[in-house]
């Protein structure tokens, strides 16, 4: 077919030649970028100088002594695998399990592992419930990108949150989905947004609710974040009654202390920059008083209680993320606990 007049950019041959050159040039740049990135990813499979020692071994979720388990992000053949270290020697040699997780948590011999499944056309995600020997007990498809995971103290309940992006083209419309499963019956509640909500003492319903970051008190009660209308709330949930009740405002990713009296959480601090708004706080559930921790940096993680007085959380590091620790009462100062690690849990 003859192209319409007037010609857009010279004779047809010249235009085709220009296109050919551009395709070669742009194709070259694109291929170069892919090859560069592929080569870089190859380097991640080699251990880095001065990195932590990692050795393959057998990992149990019910070990003989106290251990810390996490997703090890150190470069090398065991990158992204669950690994353990003795709780009192977090810098010691890591025992890698061979099980890869994006997010992980464990309690009382039950583990929850949120995994990516690399398909031919796209990534999908799944939730795997593991027994103490890290054998798969049950898997559930996950609707989006994993972000939070928790197991109840008894090991009977497990909860997880994923990010869902529903729409094409807009690309900016994100929401969360949180699910809870009972590992005794495998009864699944796959969307906590169907729970009856009581906000400020009144029944509340809204299409824009998002729930994330469950932390269990026992096998009925839990705490989580509820977001609606641009605000976030601490909610207390009941698995049996299927209810959520707001307790406090400006609370995200709560984490209940082992004695059940306090919640560590990230709070949008007034005056903090918009791109780094969150600071780590502790709320006393009896007096509802908030205490700022000594950690002054932006925290985008669900903290973990090492014991009744110490918090552990992830911050961006040279190899993805490092785990840091700070006292829960606002005293002291933060210090690095483990490098190249994320999604921790204490065992034993």
């Amino acid at each position: 077919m003859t192209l319409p007049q007037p010609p857009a950019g010279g004779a047809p041959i010249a235009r085709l030649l220009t296109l050919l050159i551009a395709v070669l040039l742009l194709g070259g740049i694109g291929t170069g970028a892919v090859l560069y990135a592929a080569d870089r990813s190859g380097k991640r499979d080699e251990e880095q100088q001065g990195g932590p020692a990692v050795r393959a071994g057998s990992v149990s979720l019910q070990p003989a002594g106290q251990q810390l388990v996490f997703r090890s992000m150190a470069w090398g053949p065991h990158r992204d695998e669950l690994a353990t270290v003795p709780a009192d020697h977090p810098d010691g040699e890591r025992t890698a399990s061979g099980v890869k997780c994006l997010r992980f948590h464990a309690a009382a011999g039950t583990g929850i592992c949120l995994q990516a499944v690399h398909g031919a056309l796209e990534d999908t995600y799944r939730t795997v419930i593991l027994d103490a020997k890290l054998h798969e007990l049950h898997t559930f498809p996950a609707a989006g990108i994993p972000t939070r995971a928790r197991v109840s103290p008894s090991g009977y309940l497990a909860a997880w949150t994923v990010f869902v992006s529903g729409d094409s083209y807009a690309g900016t419309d994100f929401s969360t989905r949180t699910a809870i499963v009972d590992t005794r019956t495998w009864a699944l509640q796959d969307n906590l947004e169907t729970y009856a909500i009581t906000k400020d003492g009144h029944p509340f319903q809204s299409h824009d609710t998002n729930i994330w970051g469950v932390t269990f008190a026992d096998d009925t009660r839990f705490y989580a974040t509820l977001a609606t209308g641009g605000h976030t709330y601490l909610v207390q949930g009941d698995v049996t009654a299927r209810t959520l009740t707001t307790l406090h405002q400006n609370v995200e990713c709560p984490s209940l202390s082992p004695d059940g009296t306090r919640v560590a959480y990230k709070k949008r601090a007034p005056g903090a920059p918009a791109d780094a708004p969150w600071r780590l706080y502790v709320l006393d559930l009896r007096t509802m008083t908030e205490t700022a921790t000594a950690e002054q940096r932006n925290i985008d993680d669900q903290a973990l209680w090492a014991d009744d007085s110490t918090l552990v959380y992830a911050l961006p590091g040279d190899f993805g993320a490092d785990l840091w620790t700070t006292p829960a009462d606002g005293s002291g100062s933060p210090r690095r606990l483990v490098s190249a690690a994320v999604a921790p849990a204490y065992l034993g």
Partner: protein
Amino acid sequence: MYLADSRSTKAPVAPGTRPGRRGAAVPGTVLALGAVSLITDISSEMVTAVLPLYVVAGLGLSPLGFGLLDGINNGVGALVRLVGGHLADRGGRGHKTVAAVGYGLSAVCKPLLLLAHTVPLIGAVLAVDRTGKGLRTAPRDAMISLATEPEHRGRAFGVHRAMDTTGALLGPLVAFAVLRATVDGYDAVFAVSGCIAALGVLVLLLFVPTPARTADAPPRSSLRDSLTLLRLPALRRLGLCAVLLGLTTVSDSFLYLLLQRQLGLSTHLFPLLPLGTAAAFLLLAVPLGALADRIGRRTLFLAGHGALLLAYVLVLARIPGGAVAVGVLLLHGMFYAATDGVLAAATANATPADQQGAGLALVGTGQALARFACSLAFGAAWSAWGGHTALAATATALAVSAVAAYLLLRSPDEVTE
């Protein structure tokens, strides 16, 4: 009654078409613009597909903050489209220039993503990207209509929309192929996306001809001139119908959410719902566009909203099962195929040649703003009454609007060529 819509006119034959041949090939300009859209959509959907993953897994941030920018982007996008349409008409041959600026702006955003590492910065880059999209939409559609004989515009827009959607479906596949090859190489995805976007701009510059200067077109100088288009009865009626029906068109994400809840679909199927709509749209865009040329664009535009109404009713019927979901998505895709390009074709035929950009932008913007208003109202209604009642109310309003639109559109098309 609608035969006038497809009557042959003595209008001057647009460049790139051969007169008098029934079922003649789609004009080269349309294919070239379709190719530009296809390439550009591969590029933009690559980014859309991996962005949440990049933000959460790559940067370790929460992407929830993006949602807040959505409202602002929608308003700005609508205004930018009006400006784009207006600028394109100035002097009669600005369409290609404005479109090129729009495509170029979006292309520049892809490499910028390599540098943006915080949620507000990424949001800002996305806003610029959307501005580019708003700017290019009206001049692109004006070029399609100016290159096509009036009686074949339905099919021409159908071909364009099908090519556009093909790109949208290919984008995620390319993105994940790159991610697979590089193991979490998000920078490589952005770089490749940038290269593909640049190629799209180049194809536009090289292979899309500058529309011939329309004879004696007085230079338009103010946006108010665009609004005088509303004095044309045919365009005014069409715009009114687009707004009226847009006010009762529930946004895609609400519909998918309702579908998932009413039918009790498992949540992991949720990401597949938009794909279902897109696939139906892709398959039906060309045949329904051609059908519109035969039986009348207004008829098909109304029939498309009938399909949407049927989709609402199917959701409301709460018949459980995957088959119903497939039916709803098929109807939803059919709705888009029967209305998206078809409205553009009808608008083009009701707008003078020298104001195609402004006319298309006016109707398109009216429809977009109406749909945005519907989203806000629907959200409030959902909170107050629950999703089921909100959808039932919307379905009723849609039925009333459709009857009103039918009455408004009864008079024949005025082809002003």
